[in-house]
C-alpha cells in the first residue's frame, strides 16, 4: 500500500521544490470557519460524515483567519458584511485563496437588490466559483479540487515577479 511499496528501499525521493511545496499546500489547506447563509449549511455537510472533506486534508476549519489558507465565501454577502469580509481576508496570511460558493456569492444570485453585493469579487479576489443555489457538497468538493489543480500549477518564477 502506498508510498512504501512504490518506492521500496530507495530511501530517497527526488523532486523539485515547486512540486514539494505544492504537494504540501494542497494536502493540508485549512479553510476559514466562516459561514454566511444557506451555503454554509451545505459547507458543513461537506465537512461532516457523509461527504467528509478530511479526505482532502481539509477537516480542520480554523475560526481564526490568522491560521487559515482558504476562505470559502458561503452565502450572500450583504453591504454591511462586505467590509468585515474584506478585513478577514486581509488578516489571512499569504498564500491565500478564495472560493466563492453559490450563486449569491458569485453574482448576486436571485437577490438583485439594494442589500446584496452583486458578486463577492467586488470585495476580494476569487479563485474558483462554485455554481448552485446552494451547491451540493459534491459541487463544493469539485471546486476545492479545481483550486488544488490551480495551486499545483503555481510556478515560483511567476510569484516572484
Amino acid at each position, binding site marked *: 500500500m502506498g508510498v512504501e511499496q512504490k518506492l521500496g528501499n530507495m530511501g530517497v525521493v527526488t523532486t523539485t521544490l515547486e512540486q514539494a511545496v505544492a504537494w504540501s499546500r494542497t494536502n493540508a489547506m485549512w479553510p476559514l470557519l466562516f459561514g454566511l*447563509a*444557506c451555503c454554509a*449549511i451545505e459547507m*458543513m455537510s461537506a465537512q461532516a460524515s457523509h461527504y467528509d472533506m478530511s479526505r482532502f486534508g481539509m477537516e480542520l476549519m480554523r475560526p481564526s483567519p490568522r491560521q487559515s489558507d482558504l476562505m470559502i465565501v458561503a452565502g450572500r454577502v*450583504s453591504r454591511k*458584511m462586505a467590509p468585515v469580509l474584506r478585513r478577514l481576508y486581509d488578516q489571512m496570511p499569504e498564500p491565500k485563496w478564495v472560493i466563492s460558493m453559490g450563486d449569491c456569492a458569485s453574482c448576486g444570485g436571485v437577490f*438583485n437588490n439594494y442589500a446584496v453585493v452583486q458578486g463577492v469579487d*467586488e470585495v476580494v479576489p476569487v479563485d474558483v466559483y462554485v455554481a448552485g443555489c446552494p451547491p451540493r457538497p459534491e459541487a463544493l468538493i469539485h471546486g476545492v479540487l479545481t483550486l488544488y489543480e490551480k495551486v499545483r500549477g503555481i510556478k515560483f518564477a511567476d510569484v516572484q515577479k
Partner: protein
Amino acid sequence: MPDIQEVTVDDLKHLVSEKAIQGETMLLNMGPQHPSTHGVLRLLLELDGETVINCIPDIGFLHTGIEKNMEAKTYQKAEVMSDRLDYMNPVGNNLAYSMAVEKLVELDVPVRAQAIRVILAELTRYQSHLVWLGTAALDLAAMSMFLYCFREREYILDVMELCSGQRMMTTYIRPGGLWRDVPVEFEAAVRNILKTFPKRIDEYEALLTRNPLMLDRTLGIGRLTGEECLNFGVTGPMLRASGVKWDLRKTRPYSGYEQYDFEVPTRPEGDVYARFLVRLEEMRQSLKIVEQALNKLPMGPVRSNNFKFVPPPRSEIGVSMEALIHHFKLWTDGFNAPKGSIYNAVESPRGELGVYLESDGGPKPYRIHWRTPSFDNLQSIPLMAKGVLVADLVAIIGSIDIVLGDVDR
C-alpha cells in the same frame, strides 16, 4: 464598498453602563465571524472579568432585502425567495407563504397535498432540529454529535431531493397544492427514516442527556420564565421549555394537523437544558406525525383544479386550448389577487412563522412582511446573558437556535 466605521466608547454611551465609559469594565466584540454565533451575529459584550454585564446584539449582517424583492415578483414567482429566508426550514416557509396566498385568493387544497405537506414539513422540522443539535453540541465541545446529526440529515435531504430535485431549496409546496405528486420511491424512503431514526434519537440521548459535562454546561443557564417569554414574543421550543403550552399545530391547527395524534412537550425549568429536552422530544413527535400521515395518505390530485390561480398539468397543455391559455397567462402576467390583507402563521422549528400579505388588487403583493421567530427569540438574549459567564453565553446562543437568515431577512 463602505469602510468599517471606527467607533469610540462615547458612541456606545447609551448602550453600556457607566463603568464601561470609565474603563472599569471591558467592551468586547463577539462576531460577526465567530464559530458559536451560528452565522453572522455580532454581540457587543460588556465584561467584568469573565462575567457578562451587558450583551447588545447587532444584527443586519445578512440583510438580504427578501421582503422587498418578493414585492417585485408575481405571487407564484415570489415564493422562490421564501426558501432562502429561514434556510433551515425551507418547506415551512413555503407552507406559510402558500397558505397565505391560498387564503387571499380563496383556494382549496386537496387532502392528499395537505398530508404530503405535513409529512415534508415535519421532516424539515426534524432536519432543522438535527442541525441545531449538532451545532449546539459542537459549541459545548461534543464533536461527535455534529457528525452523527449530519449523517442522519442526509436521509431527509434525500427525500427532499426525490420529491423536488433539490436538497435544500425545494419550492415544492406551491399555492394551491404541490408542484407535482411524490414519486413512487417516496414511501419506502420515508418508511426507512421512520424505522431507523427512533434508535438514533436514543443514541443522542445516551450521549448527552445524562452526560455530566452537558449537565454542568446547561442546567440552570439562560433561564427565562414563561411570562418573560410572552413579553418578549418568544415562541416555539423556547416558549414551551418555559412551561407555556403553545404550539400552533395544536392551538390553531392548519393543513390537517388536527387529525394527527401528537403531544406538545413542555418543561417548566426554562433553561438551556430544558430547551434541549423539549427539542429532542419534538423530534420524536415529528416522527409520530409523519408515520400517521403516511399511513393514511389519501389518493387523489395534489393540486387545485382552479386554473385561474394554479397552472394546469403539463399533459393538458398539448391537448386543451384553455389549458394553454391559462398556462401562458399565469406565467406571463400572474393572477390578480383581490384587494385586502392576510396574516397567516405556521409553527416553524423555531416558533411562530407568520406572513403578512397586503394586496392592492394587482398580480404582485403590495407589501409582504415576515414575522420570523428567530428575530423575536433573539431579543431575549440581553436578558438571558446578564450575569452569566462568557462560556455560558455560547450555550445560550446555541439554545435559542437562531438562523441569521431568519433574523435579518
